[in-house]
C-alpha cells in the first residue's frame, strides 16, 4: 500500500492520510527540498567564505542557540525575561571550570571531554533556571521583567566577586575548547579553526533547533502557548501553570548554558562584564527581529545581529557623515549601539512578526497565487 500511496500523494500535498504526516516537520515536498537546499548551502559556505566572516557566522550560530532558548520562554510561553545573560554566564563559567587547567590559580577540573562540560554547562544553567522559575509562577508581565532584570545585576556581582572562578573584575578567563573525535576544533589543521568551529556550530544548531521545534509542537509547546495567550484560561483548561512555567524556564536556561559554553570558543577568552544588560537586550532584539515564537525566525535574527557590526563597518563607504574612526563623531561604533534599539523599534512598529513575518508574507503571496487568500 505504501508504494500505491506514494503515487497518490504526489501532487496532493494536502491529502493527509494520517496525523503524523500532517504534523511532520517537513510536511510538503517543497519544504523538504527547501530545507535540504539551505542546509547544503550552509554546509559548503566555509569553503568559499573568508575566515574572519566565518568567525562572525559561528558567533551567530551559537547566539541562535541561546536565542532559541529565550524564544521558548518569552516567545512561546510569553514570560518576558531580561535575565538571559545571567544563564549564558553560568554556562560559560561552568564549561570553563569543568574543562579548565587544574594547575591554574583559578578553579579547574581539567575534564576536556566536550560532552561533559557542554552538558554540564547546560545543566548548571538549567538548574539555576529551575530555581528562578518559582518566582515566575507568582509574577507576570512587567514585574517578571523587573525581577529577571535584577538577576542580571546579581549575576554581574557574582561573576566579578567569585574570584576563584572568574579571577575578578575585568579579568579574562580562557573559554572551554571544543574537541571532537580527538580533534581540537580551535587549532588549525587540514581545515582552519574557523571552518571547523562553523561546521560544529551548524551541526549543533540544527540539533538544538529541531529539538526546540519538537518541544514547541508537542503537548508542552501547546501548554506554553496557552499560558502565553492567557494564563488563567490555560489553568482552567487544565494546564498546570507552575509545572509548565518551570519547564519553560529550565529548558530556556539549558539553551542559554549551551550557548554560553561555546560562545567564546573562537575568541578564546571572556570577562565577567560580557554578561551584562546589553547581552540580554541583544537576545531580546534577536527574538523580536527574528520573530516571536518561531525557531527559523530566531536563527535569521541571530545571524542579522551577529553580522550587524560587520554591516555597520561597511556603512561609512555609503553614508558620508558616518565616520569609521572612533575619535570622530558620529562614528559607526556609536551607530552600532543605537542600532539594536532602532531595529527593535522599527520591527515592533512595522513588522511585529519579525523577519519570519516578512518570509511568511512572501510565502503566502506565492502560496495563494493567483488568488490573494
Amino acid at each position, binding site marked *: *500500500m505504501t508504494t*500505491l*500511496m506514494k*503515487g*497518490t500523494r504526489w*501532487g*496532493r500535498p*494536502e*491529502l*493527509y*492520510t*494520517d*496525523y503524523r504526516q*500532517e504534523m511532520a516537520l517537513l510536511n510538503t515536498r517543497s519544504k523538504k527540498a527547501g530545507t535540504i537546499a539551505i542546509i547544503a548551502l550552509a554546509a559548503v559556505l566555509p569553503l568559499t567564505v573568508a575566515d574572519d566572516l566565518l568567525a562572525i557566522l559561528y558567533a551567530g550560530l551559537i547566539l541562535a542557540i541561546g536565542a532559541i532558548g529565550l524564544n521558548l520562554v518569552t516567545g512561546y510561553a510569553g514570560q518576558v525575561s531580561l535575565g538571559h545573560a545571567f544563564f549564558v554566564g553560568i554556562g560559560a563559567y561552568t564549561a570553563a571550570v569543568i574543562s579548565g587547567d587544574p594547575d591554574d590559580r583559578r578553579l579547574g577540573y581539567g575534564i576536556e571531554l566536550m560532552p561533559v562540560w557542554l552538558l554540564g554547562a547546560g545543566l548548571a544553567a538549567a538548574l539555576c533556571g529551575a530555581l528562578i522559575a518559582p518566582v515566575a509562577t507568582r509574577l507576570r508581565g512587567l514585574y517578571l521583567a523587573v525581577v529577571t532584570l535584577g538577576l542580571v545585576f546579581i549575576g554581574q556581582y557574582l561573576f566579578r566577586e567569585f574570584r576563584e572562578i572568574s579571577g575578578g573584575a575585568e579579568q579574562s578567563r580562557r573559554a572551554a575548547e571544543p574537541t571532537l573525535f580527538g580533534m581540537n576544533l580551535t587549532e588549525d589543521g587540514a581545515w582552519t579553526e574557523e571552518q571547523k568551529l562553523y561546521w560544529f556550530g551548524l551541526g549543533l544548531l540544527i540539533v538544538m533547533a529541531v529539538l526546540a521545534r519538537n518541544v514547541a509542537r508537542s503537548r508542552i509547546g501547546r501548554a506554553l502557548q496557552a499560558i502565553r495567550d492567557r494564563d488563567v484560561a490555560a489553568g482552567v483548561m487544565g494546564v498546570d501553570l507552575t509545572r509548565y512555567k518551570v519547564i519553560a524556564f529550565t529548558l530556556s536556561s539549558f539553551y542559554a548554558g549551551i550557548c554560553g559554553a561555546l560562545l567564546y570558543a573562537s575568541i578564546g577568552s571572556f570577562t565577567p562584564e560580557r554578561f551584562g544588560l546589553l547581552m540580554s537586550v541583544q537576545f531580546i532584539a534577536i527574538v523580536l527581529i527574528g520573530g516571536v515564537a518561531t525557531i527559523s525566525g530566531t536563527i535569521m535574527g541571530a545571524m542579522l545581529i551577529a553580522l550587524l557590526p560587520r554591516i555597520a563597518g561597511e556603512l561609512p563607504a555609503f553614508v558620508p557623515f558616518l565616520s569609521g574612526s572612533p575619535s570622530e563623531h558620529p562614528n559607526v561604533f556609536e551607530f552600532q549601539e543605537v542600532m539594536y534599539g532602532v531595529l527593535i523599534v522599527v520591527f515592533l512598529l512595522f513588522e511585529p512578526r519579525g523577519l519570519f513575518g516578512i518570509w511568511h508574507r512572501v510565502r503566502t503571496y506565492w502560496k*495563494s*497565487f*493567483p*488568488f*490573494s*487568500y
Partner: protein
Amino acid sequence: MTRTLVTRIRDRAAATPRGVAMREKRLGVWHEITWASYWDSVVDVAHALLSLGVQPGDRVAIQSENRPEWLILDMATVAIRGTTVGLYPTNPSAETDYLLTHSGACVHLAEDQEQVDKVPDVADAPTLRTIIHVETRGLRTYDDPRLLPWDRLVELGREHRAAHPGAVEALLEAAELDDVITLVYTSGTTGPPKGAMLTHRNAEFALSTVLEKSPFTDPAPGPKDLTLSYLPLCHVAERVLTTWYNAGAGTQVNFAESIETVPQNLREVQPTLLFAVPRIWEKLLASARIKLDSATWFKRRHARFWLARADRMGQTLAANGGRHTLGTRLVYAVGWVFFYRALRDRLGLRRVRHASSGAAPIAPEVLQFFMGIGVPMHELYGMTENTAIATANRPGRVKLGTVGETHEGIEVRLDDQTNEILTRHPAVFAGYWQDPEATANTMTPDGWLRTGDVGEWVDGTHLRITDRMKDIIITAGGKNVAPSEIENGLKASPFVKEAIVIGDGRKYLTALIGIELDTVGAWAQKQNLAFTTYRDLSEKPEVRALVQSVVDEVNTRHNPVEQIKRFQLLPKELDHEDGELTATQKVKRSAIDAMFHDLVEEMYAGAAAGSTGGAA
C-alpha cells in the same frame, strides 16, 4: 455465475487487498479503507441483514450523507439480493414518510438524530422493522425499539457469519441479471416521486459501455483514479460514479465532508475524474472570478492577461472539438507555468483528466471557461430511467451546446412528431416501482424509453437538447420558446443564481431572477452599498440595474419573441425544504408559480389583457 457489482468488489479485494478503496475525512485526516476491509464489512453487514430477516427482494432504505457506510450497506443489500432505496438527506419529513411507505422498506439507515426524527411511527410505516443509525449523538435517550446502532449491526453480522458461514456467498451465487438492485426515486418536478427500478443487467451494461466498449478516457478509469463523492448518492449519476465505478473500475472514492466544503476537499483530493452538476461548475467559476478580482494589483493584472488568453483558447478549443492546435498548445504551455497550473491547483482541478457536467443544462460559456484554463470538459446526457447513460461528448470530438454522441450499443432517436428523444438499450430501467401505469406511459410498446426531453441532431452526430417537453413555453402569439436556453444564458452570469422564464399563454416573456448572494454581495461591497439580508440586497435599485444589464446582454442574443421584457428579483433564496426546489436543486415550476404569483402578475399588470387576449 453472473458478474455483478458485488462480485466485482469481492474479486478486487482478492486481487489487491491492500489497495485503497475509499477515503473518509475525520478530524482533519483522510482515513483510508482498503479493498479487503471494504469487502469484509460488506460481508459482515450482509450477514447482519440476513439475521434481521431481510429476504431477497426486500427493500433497504438509506438516508445519509455520503460516507463509507452508505456504500457498505448498499452493496451488502445487493449481495443478499435485496433492493436499495436511496433517500436525499435533505428530504423533508413528509417526503421521507412517503418514500419509506411507498417503497415498503423493512430496514432503514438514518444517519443521525436529524434523519431518525424524520422516520415515521410504527403505525404509519408497518413494514419498517429496523432503523440503523451511524451517529449516536443525541439518540441515547430514544427508546424506539426499532433503533439499532451501526456497531451493533456489524456485531450481529459477525455472530451470524460465524453461525452460518457461506450464507451470503450462496445468495451471491444465486443472483440473477434481472434482480432489482436499487430503486432510484426521480426528483419529481411534477407530482410525487416515482421509483425507477434498476437491475444488475442495467448496471452491468452501463459499466461495460463506459469502461470497456467506449471508455471516455484514455486510459480507461482505473485504480489510479481518484473521485470526490459529494453529490447525493441516491441520485443515479453519483451512484454510478461513486459506488459503481468504484466496484467496476477500482477508482478511489474520497468522501467530501459536506457540500459546503467541496472547494476545500477538491484542493486536498485533486481528483482525476470529476463530475459535477452545472450549479457546482457555475459556483466554481463564480468563486474563481471573485477571488481573482479581489486579488492584489499585480495578481489581478496577471490574471486578466492569462484569462484573456484562456478565453481565446477556449474559443479555439470549442471550435476544434476540444482538440488543441499548435498555437493554443504553445500558449497553454507558457500559461501553464505562469498561471493555469496555479489556478487549477487552487480550484482543485489540477489533475482532472476528465471533467463532465450533466443532470441539468449548462451554459456553453461555463464549459468554455474551463476548457480555456485546460480542464477537459465534457457534457453528458442521461437520466435515471436509462441508468444515466445515453450520449456523451467524446474527448476531441466535443461540440459545445450539445450533449454529445450516442454511446456504442445504444440506440437514440427522435420522435417523428414531437422531436422527443427516445432511447433503447439494455440499461433502460425495468419500470417504476408499483406504478405500471406510469411505466406504460414512459415506455413505447417496442421498448423505447420516452425521455421527456425535446432534442435535435447537430451535424447528424451530436444531440442537442432543446428543453424538457413540459417546460416548452407557447406564448400567446403561438410561438414555441425553450426557456432553459434563455435561463442558462442568464445563469452564466456570476450574479445570477436562479432564473425562471415565464410566458406560457402570455403576450411576452418575463423572468423571475434570484441573485447569487456571494457575488452580488462582493459587488455591493465594492460599490460601498450597505445591505443586511438577501431580501434587502435584492431590493436595492443598484442591484436591479445590475441584473437589468445582464438581462439586456442576454436579450441581444435572442430574437424579439424570445427576449425578456420584464423581470422581478426573487425576495428569497429558493430552498428544498420550502418545496421550491427538488432534492437535486431543480426548480419546481408549479410551486414557484403558486408562491410568487403576485410577482408574476405584477410583471403582466401593464398589459392588462396579456393573460387572456391573443390566445384565440
